[in-house]
Every structure is written in structure tokens, then in C-alpha cells.
């Protein structure tokens, strides 16, 4: 993470949001595997939420868009300063993508521990990883100076 735009607090925030998204997705999948026939009340309640599982998860992933948006807006001055002292926009963008992917990868591997704990398939969160990669690539276009 040398010359990174990310500070510790940014990394912490990003990991927290990624983990909330991954954990929510896993918990949805987990409750679907539970045998809730002993309680019809519980079963119908859980069903009323899990019916909209995908919509809820996609809404939650929007928080990552919010994170990238506010992060890049706050870093505009720093990017200008870096360019002033010899850095280039291309290098900054590449570093931003790589750092974002590293944070995403780290969060994904952390979420795998929950996968193993709940005895769920390790690939359950992969579709979210692709969505997040897409967000990162789109947000890379927003790396701008002041």
C-alpha cells in the first residue's frame, strides 16, 4: 500500500462495509438452509424477507458506491498535490484500483471464515465480488484532481 490514497480509517470503513454485505448475503443463504418447519410463524416471516434477498443485498452494495464516491471527493486536493510533486494520473489510478482490489480481496478472505463457520459453499459471495470489482472500475473513472 505504498503511496496509497487510503488511510487506515478508510481501509477500516471499506472492510466494514464489505463485511456487512458479505455477511448479510451469507446469513440469507444460511437461513434458507435451516429447517424452520417447527415454527410456521418464523418460516413465513423469514420468507417475507428472503423473497427480496437479491434486492436487499444489491441495495446494501450501494454503500460501497457511496464509500468510493466520498473517498475520491475527499482526495481531490491530495491528488492535485501528488501530481504537482511528480506523480502521474495513470499511476494514481492504477494504484487506486490495485489498493481497492486488495481491500476487497482481504475482506472476501475474511468473509470465508464465516462461510466455513456456517458450512456454506465458498463461492456464495463470488457474485458480490464481481459486482464490487465493477464498482471499483467505474469509480476509477472518477479519480480526478481538484
Amino acid at each position: 500500500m505504498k503511496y496509497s490514497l487510503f488511510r487506515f480509517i478508510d481501509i477500516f470503513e471499506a472492510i466494514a462495509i464489505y463485511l456487512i454485505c458479505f455477511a448479510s448475503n451469507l446469513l440469507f443463504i444460511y437461513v434458507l438452509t435451516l429447517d424452520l418447519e417447527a415454527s410456521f410463524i418464523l418460516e413465513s416471516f423469514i420468507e417475507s424477507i428472503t423473497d427480496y434477498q437479491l434486492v436487499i443485498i444489491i441495495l446494501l452494495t450501494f454503500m460501497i458506491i457511496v464509500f468510493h464516491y466520498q473517498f475520491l471527493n475527499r482526495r481531490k486536493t491530495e491528488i492535485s498535490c501528488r501530481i504537482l510533486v511528480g506523480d502521474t494520473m495513470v499511476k494514481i489510478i492504477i494504484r487506486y484500483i490495485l489498493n481497492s482490489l486488495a481491500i476487497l480481496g482481504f475482506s472476501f478472505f475474511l468473509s470465508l471464515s464465516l462461510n466455513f463457520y456456517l458450512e456454506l459453499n465458498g463461492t456464495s459471495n463470488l457474485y458480490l465480488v464481481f459486482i464490487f470489482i465493477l464498482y471499483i472500475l467505474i469509480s476509477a473513472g472518477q479519480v480526478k484532481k481538484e
Partner: protein
Amino acid sequence: MRILRFFITRIFLKRWILVLGMILLLFLANYLSFTTARSVISTFQGYQEIETLNQEGTFIANLDPDSKTENETINIDKTRKLYEYLDNHYTYALQVDGFVTSLENEHEMEVTFSYINEEAYKINQFSLSQGNHLTFNYQFNQETIPVLVGAGLATTYPVGSTIEITDPVTQQLVNLNVRGVLKENTHRSNFYAPNIKNYFNFSIFLPVNEEFIQRAGLDLHVNGLTDIALLDSTEDEAMNLKEHIQKNLGLELNFFNQQENFDYFEEYYVYSLKIICTIMFILLIIIVCLATWNNFTSIRLMKKDFTINLVVGLSYSKLRAIFYSYFGLLFSINLTLLIAITAFNRYGFWLRKESLYATYGIFGLLSMDWIALLIVLFIDLIIGVTIVELTLTKIKRIPISVGVLN
């Protein structure tokens, strides 16, 4: 008002992604609290209905979950004899719903028959919007059978009209005479999932007497037995019937008395509702944390705008009022969205012709939906106050000089 419009259009909407993020998060919070509140209200309503049946001397039957029934041991002769035995020795309430038939009606809905005997009819005390109550002393095949129709059938089959139809359980052509119309949204809650209800807006209530039962098919006999309620009975009588049914039909039924039912339902409901509320509480906490974070990031980005306005005379109390109005607006958008989605879901039952779930109401919403929306409004107030006060504390911590420097 002008300053509020200025803040919304020039400051908040300038960073519309953050506003959209906030709307989405608050919508999630609203949807989850609405689902939970409605589930709890519906369960409570169902429990109250079951309470009317759960009296002293009443024994409610249910099929033992471990019972392995061999269908070949049950035949119509045996069930007829069993009902004869029941009529001679017991007083019982019987209601069996869901026998589908095709009957022309203006909404082109499937019509279901609900068979009810006199005791069950007396206990449930269904309200009518027109006409008179059912009578049970008719002669099957010799005279018309008096029936009640659901509110959805009232215009096609008004009080006094006659319906000629093949009855689904006797498979005989019968003449039904409409005696009365059930009130809109008359329903019956599922015994084991009281939050699930069958609505009788497109049902025909057919009175069942001894003669009718003897002519009915196996479906009505067996389904009726598994939900039958013995009235004014004793533990010994219930046990005798249990043994009689097991010996003759091979069906293993349990008959629980008032206390056993009370204990069972109390434990079952309380356990389920506790889990539902815990899940909702945890999810709400997570969403409120995310929403607060989203608002804090907005503050970070709008630091300059806020401090400039504070320098030129905006007071913190006015800023607080702006934030409350802003959140009021967001909550109003979300509540409208929630009402629209709920109304659409209810309307979906009409579109899919699911007659047992099709309901009437203002904007298609039932009373339990409106009560749940009120609870959501209350939860929104708590969420709004929490986020606004935390945000104000955060803004007050920003030194004016730093903001201006930005």
C-alpha cells in the same frame, strides 16, 4: 421554507449519491420494521381468534406429526361410520375450507367452498353486511341449501339469488340460495401460523348437517377430522375418540385441552415472536449505523457549505430544524414507497386470481397494514432523532475556522 429548499437543492442534492444512499438505507429499515410489525400484529390477531375456540371443555384435534397413515386403511364407509359415531356421542365444531370450484363472477376469481357446521358457526360469530344468518335444518337434495357468500360475490349473487352448481364434496348438482353476504375481509387464521390468513371474499359458506356429512366425500371427512374441536367434553371422552379413530381409521390424532393448548401456543408464539423481534432489532441497529456513517460522510464533504452558512448567520437550532425537515422528507418518500409496494402486493393477489388472499381496503391496504405503518412511523421518529442529533454533535465539533479554510 426557502432556506430548506436552498439546503436541499444546493447542498444535499449536489451530492445526490449520498442522498440516494440514505433513501435506500432508510427504506430498508422501513421495510424490515414494517414486515416485522405486520407479522406481530397478524400473529396477535390470529391468537385472539384461536382464543375464542380455546375454552374449558374444548379439545382441539391435530394430526400427530409422527403418525404414518396408510391411505388404503381409510375408506368412505369407515369415515361415514365414524361421523355417525361422532354425531351420536359428541358435540363438535367443524370447518373445512379451500374446496375450489369454478363459478362465474365479475372478477373471474376461483370460488372456494367453506363447509361449516352449526357449532363452528356459533363459535366464530361471522358478521354479515347483508341478509340473514345460516340455518342448518335443510333437507339435502329436496330443498335449496341456504348459503352465505363472500363480499366479492355479492354483486353477481345478491341476497335471494339461486346458484346451481355441482358441489365439490358430494359431487351432486345442488341449488344454493344466498341467505346473506359476509362482511368484507372475513377471514380465518391458520392454527399453527396465525399470521397466515385465508380471506373469504370469494367463498361460499355452506352449512353442514348430519345428512350432508353422510353424503360428503372422503376429502371433507378426513380434512374435517384433523381440525375438529370437541365441545363440552372431558379428557376421558377425548381419549376414547382418539382410540376409536386410531382403531378404525389408523389416524393418530392428538386432542389437547385448554391448558395444553394455552401452554403450547404461549411457548410457540412467544418463542417465534422473540426471535423475529431480535432479528429485526439487530438488522435495524446495523442499518442505523450505516445510515449514520452515510450522514457523517455527507458532513465531511459538505463541511465547507455548513460552516459558511454558520458564519453568515445560520444558527445551530435552525440547522437542526433543516435536518429534521430533510429527514422528514426522506421518511415521507420512503413511507409513500412502502404504501405503494404493499398496495401493489395486495393487488397482486387479485391479478394472480388468488381468491383466498384477495382483500379489500383503502388503497388495498388492510387495517393491520395501517397499524404496521404507524409503528414504522414511530420507529422512523427514533431513527431520525438519533441520526440528526449525532450529526449535529458532529457538526458542532468542527471548528468554524477549519470549515472556512476548506
